[in-house]
């Protein structure tokens, strides 16, 4: 399996996506600045404490990388079908399920790591900026750090699972737009913080989402050994 993952990375030159991840990080930082100045101009405080800040950060980072994952799914799976290179892959002496699972593992691991590391990176930059300019009224306590970290891991796992859901819709028509649009709909459904209720706060929900994602992904390639490849 490690070898299959390595081959996929080599085949699609996936490390070149690190640049895009960097750009996404910069954009998300820009977004935080924007929120800060927008609130300030209205006389409000954007970041009253670190818990709220990281909740907000999470609701920016998660959608970005779930959609990013949909792009990866398109690239790794849907486009292989469209360009027919999947016929090549399926003529190798390797189980088709293994091939697909390798691809999905890349997607899930990427989503998890990208969310973890990006949040960590932006959070650190935010903290450093705060220690210079002091724009967060409440100081960060050790208890908050563990709480934030725990939430982060949970939501990253949930997102990694959820990121696989668009595969199901994309595979129906072997269409890249369908994959990406379904990812956008997915994040807009699960990520709404408009009424100040963050569904990621309840442990059961992220876990259920992660499991649903895996299950749906499994259903999209359950019969792959039996169906025709055209």
């Amino acid at each position, binding site marked *: 399996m490690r070898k299959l993952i390595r081959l996929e990375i080599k085949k699609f030159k996936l490390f070149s996506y690190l640049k895009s991840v960097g750009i996404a990080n910069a954009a998300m930082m820009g977004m935080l600045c924007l929120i800060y100045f927008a609130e300030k101009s209205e006389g409000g405080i954007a970041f009253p404490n670190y818990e709220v800040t990281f909740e907000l950060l999470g609701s920016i980072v998660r959608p970005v990388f779930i959609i990013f994952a949909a792009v990866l799914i398109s690239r790794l799976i849907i486009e292989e079908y469209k360009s027919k290179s999947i016929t090549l892959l399926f*003529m190798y002496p390797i189980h088709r399920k293994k091939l697909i699972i390798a691809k999905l593992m890349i997607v899930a691991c990427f989503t998890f790591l990208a969310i973890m590391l990006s949040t960590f990176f932006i959070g650190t930059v935010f903290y450093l900026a705060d220690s210079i300019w002091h724009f967060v009224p409440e100081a960060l306590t050790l208890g908050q750090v563990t709480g934030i970290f725990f939430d982060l891991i949970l939501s990253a796992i949930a997102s990694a699972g959820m990121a696989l859901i668009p595969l199901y819709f994309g595979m129906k028509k072997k269409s890249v737009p369908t994959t990406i649009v379904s990812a956008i709909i997915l994040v807009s459904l699960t990520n709404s913080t408009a009424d100040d209720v963050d569904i990621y706060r309840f442990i059961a929900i992220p876990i259920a989402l992660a499991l649903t994602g895996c299950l749906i992904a499994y259903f999209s390639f359950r019969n792959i050994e039996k169906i*025709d490849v055209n």
Partner: protein
Amino acid sequence: MCYVIKTNQLTKTYKGKEVVANVNMKVKKGEIYGFLGPNGAGKTTIMKMLTNLVKPTSGEIELFGEKLTNTSYELFKRMGSIIEYPVFYDRLTARENLELHCEYMGYYDKRAIDSALDLVKLKNIDNKSVKEFSLGMKQRLAIARAIITKPELLILDEPINGLDPVGIKELRDLFHMLSHEYGITMLVSSHILGEMEQIADTIGVINDGKLIKEVSMDEIHEQNTEYIELAVTDVKKAFYVLDEILHLENFKVVDSSRFRIYDTALSQSEISKTLILNGVMIEEMNKKNHSLEDYFLTLLNGGGISA
């Protein structure tokens, strides 16, 4: 007899329409089997079934004496193939594509890549991504990829498409070499008759999803007949001369101005001399060989030689 490919009543239906119907084909070890048929006859579908990409609606396939099932992956180590048209990872170079192929196949001979590229005569391609390749180059690269792991069975769908005449000749030589020196069994499809005739040992003629005939080239050659094709201005007069004066028995009118004379008793010059002396103008006269084309057309039309 040892068969590498054997199918038993192989059938594939798409939406109620039979694309491949009750095909029983047998490919002997070491031979080049030519799959001949018009576009849409079902050649590619059969090849896809042989490589497990398409599952038969009914019937069975045996490869190397083993029944092909959904999970017979081990068999694919012994096969190389091009199905439909050459597909590559476009953004990678030719060498990277071949390296990937070797890794997936579990084949680790680094020199094999060079020797395969050498065999198909692909040169100066190191810095090009496959996207920039012409169809002919892709075709060569696909063949290189198919033969790189030294398979026992090659399944090549239209391998000479997009090649220039020199390329076709080179590949023909390559196929013969692979067959004779390495003993590789080959299943090659094409709709180009002349090529099949020169490449194949056995020909399977397929039309409308049915395998109409499976025949060895030797047998076809035995059936070959020579004839003289004649174009004249006045058919009626010529008919009279051929029939009444020359007493030819075995000849026929092909169209409004052409005859075919199968009788070999008289030489070409004698026939022309008699015709001219009797006032029949000859526009054209050729000695022809009954080629695979006629044979093929006969089979497809299911009737006489008349075209």
